[in-house]
């Protein structure tokens, strides 16, 4: 069994589930406006691509911009927190408040206040996504080896040198763990904000396509859009796992191969 490649078993499970779904819909005569067969959804993906493709791009754009802002914002705040306990103690509770307040409850306000739709969506997605990066990186910056900290002191290292050569590298595994969580959350934040905004027109993402298709009872298109959102989430997760592996493979146990 150990010779079976990692990807084979989940692919097999997926194929079986899809086959059963297809068979159930066809044999049971379920109408497509209740549950479309996978083959119908696949066809829909192709025929509606002119609508779904640009929406996918729009959602991905929002997600990636939100993730980049989360990395910059979360990373900057974490470094700020690591400089002084006073700053950390003063500001951290507010970061927690931002994190625990449900984004669907705040999004309507943000959409009223911010005229630019993309900016409003970005703010919503950022609020959801920045916290894992902030809390993980803060933890990482504070977890540098005590003896290494002492060594830097012996050599008279400046605050900046300690940050640059010791604290930031020590924080990388923690930052990477936060990044993988934030990648998924950026997408969720972007989609939730789109739902709340319900914005139509040229600049609209996959969430709006789902709403729109729902009003028209175009259930296959709803499924097609849903499929694209999931696929985007999986792609983001895989990409960030790859970045994490490339960054840590030489030294961190989580990424290094056992036989090395």
């Amino acid at each position, binding site marked *: 069994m150990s010779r079976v490649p990692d990807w084979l078993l989940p692919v097999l499970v997926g194929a079986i589930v899809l086959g059963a779904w297809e068979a159930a819909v066809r044999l049971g005569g379920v109408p497509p406006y209740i549950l479309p067969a996978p083959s119908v959804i696949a066809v829909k993906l192709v025929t509606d691509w002119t609508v779904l493709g640009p929406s996918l791009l729009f959602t991905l754009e929002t997600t990636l911009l939100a993730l980049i802002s989360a990395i910059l914002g979360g990373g900057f705040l974490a470094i700020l927190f690591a400089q002084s306990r006073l700053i950390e103690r003063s500001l951290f509770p507010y970061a927690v408040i931002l994190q625990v307040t449900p984004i669907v409850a705040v999004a309507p306000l943000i959409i009223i206040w911010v005229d630019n739709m993309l900016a409003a969506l970005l703010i919503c997605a950022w609020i959801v996504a920045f916290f894992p990066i902030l809390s993980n990186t803060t933890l990482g910056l504070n977890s540098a*080896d005590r*003896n*290494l900290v*002492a*060594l*830097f*002191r*012996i*050599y*008279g*290292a400046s605050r900046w*040198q300690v940050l640059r*050569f*010791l604290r930031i*590298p020590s924080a*990388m595994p923690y930052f990477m763990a936060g990044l993988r969580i934030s990648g998924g959350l950026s997408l969720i934040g972007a989609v939730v904000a789109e739902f709340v905004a319900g914005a139509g027109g040229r600049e609209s993402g996959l969430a709006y396509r789902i709403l729109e298709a729902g009003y028209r009872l175009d259930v296959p298109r709803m499924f097609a859009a849903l499929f694209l959102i999931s696929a985007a989430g999986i792609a983001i997760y895989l990409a960030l796992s790859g970045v994490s592996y490339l960054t840590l493979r*030489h*030294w*961190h146990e989580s990424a*290094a191969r056992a036989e*090395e």
Partner: protein
Amino acid sequence: MLSPIVTLDHVRKRFANGTEALGDVSLAIRPGEFLSLLGPSGCGKSTVLRLVAGLSEPSAGTIAWSRMRELGFVFQEPTLMPWSRVLGNVLLPLRLAGTPRDEAEARARAALALVGLAGFERAFPRQLSGGMKMRVSIARALVTRPPLLLMDEPFAALDEITRLKLNDDLLALWLEQRFTTVFVTHSVFESVYLSSRILVMSARPGRIAADIAIDAPYPRSDGFRLSPDYARHCAEVSAALAGAMAA
């Protein structure tokens, strides 16, 4: 006799939690000597080292340097940066001091050759054995050519065979480079083999219980370990240690 590099005068150390780690320690580190601090765990020998290194301040008494404070420190663990290659780890003290890159790299390579690790510059710490990591740590401590090397039970976590080999290599380096060494250990045999002088410490609060010169000539090798002279010194130091622990 040459004037001491570092002099501790009636130094006391009480930690914030009230523990009295050192009670009235006076000692002088003489240039060129191999000084061991020997004692049971909790006798404050590591505290002495941290005070000399400036990592902690004495609660009373003074610590005086006869020149600028410059030292190398080797911890009980290799304490390497796992994300950095061997060369990068040895480069660290020079990089922190702002030494030009080319010069720093040449000196780091030379220090690695000194500890027998030429050819391992590009390796990551996790690819090395415990003994090799400790060698990297020693190379890093020596790369700035400090007049004083402080070692805090550096070989305690290593196996016997590796420890004996590192003892020999450390002595050879010390004879060649003539840096002053302060070596913390809880092994009588290790301290007698290495040292020119041993300070036996007693615990709670830490004090100097005995000051014993080991006058056997260098270079020392396995022959010294088997000599009656070695056995006599070990017996003397053991007795002093037993006395210190009973007191």
